């Protein structure tokens, strides 16, 4: 059996990227500005993390306009939702393992 710590995915496990996926798991899609404010990030920082997630196929980015206002929508892909669930499972297993060995 693989140790739960080895099941943690570096792409997902990073704090900001985990936050992005957590927000997107509860919504159909979120605007770039909403994510930036909710996670308290700068535009550049958020862009970099979204690019990493997009490259891994975990989120989908869609640019468009709402009236005259430009909008960038970010949406978790099915793989992204699965990756978040797997990460949470690995973390819970890790905690259970430490608890069991301490008992």
């Amino acid at each position, binding site marked *: 059996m693989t140790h739960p710590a080895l099941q943690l995915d570096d792409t997902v496990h990073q704090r900001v990227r985990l936050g992005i996926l957590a927000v997107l798991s509860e919504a159909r899609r979120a605007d770039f500005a909403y994510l930036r404010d909710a996670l308290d990030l700068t535009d550049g920082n958020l862009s970099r993390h979204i690019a990493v997630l997009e490259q891994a196929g975990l989120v989908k980015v869609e640019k468009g306009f709402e009236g005259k206002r430009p909008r960038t929508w970010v949406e978790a892909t099915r793989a992204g939702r699965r990756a978040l669930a797997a990460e949470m499972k690995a973390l819970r297993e890790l905690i259970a393992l430490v*608890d069991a060995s301490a008992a």
Partner: protein
Amino acid sequence: MEHAEAARTLDDVARMRRRTRRAVHPVWFSNLVAGAFFTGSAAIMAVDAGTAVALAYWIGGGALGLALIVAYSVRLERELGLEGRPADPVLGIVAAIVTAAVLLDGELALLVAAAGTLAVGLLLRDRFELAAGAAIAAVAVAILAVDPAEPWLWGNLGLGLSLLGAGLAGSRS
């Protein structure tokens, strides 16, 4: 990775998910509208306005209330930049409450409404919603115990005031 760090990460993710769920579901507004609707329906029963007026109120008022809630949600989603999921558990529970209210008998419908409100409260960790659920359940139990002359009137009044209270408290928090 340490035990404490893993636990903290899980907590952070859960908190972020909860905050998003609450942002996308302004339940206080739905509670205000539904509360006003059910309190109004109790008033119509109390003055015995007749079947035609009652029917017009339920159909017209119900449609208007639903339209208000949808319009508010759409506006909020646009302002926030956050769109809710189409297959959402909160929406499913609300749909089940409305269906039960239409199809079931007085106290039973009230108990389903209480269970649904409590479920939404648990899902969103909203103390006002939980309090409203408990109040609706108490009203249902009281009606079953006392068996008043007009259980529908008291049921709708209890339901309406419970939701109104949760809506007002939620709007200020």
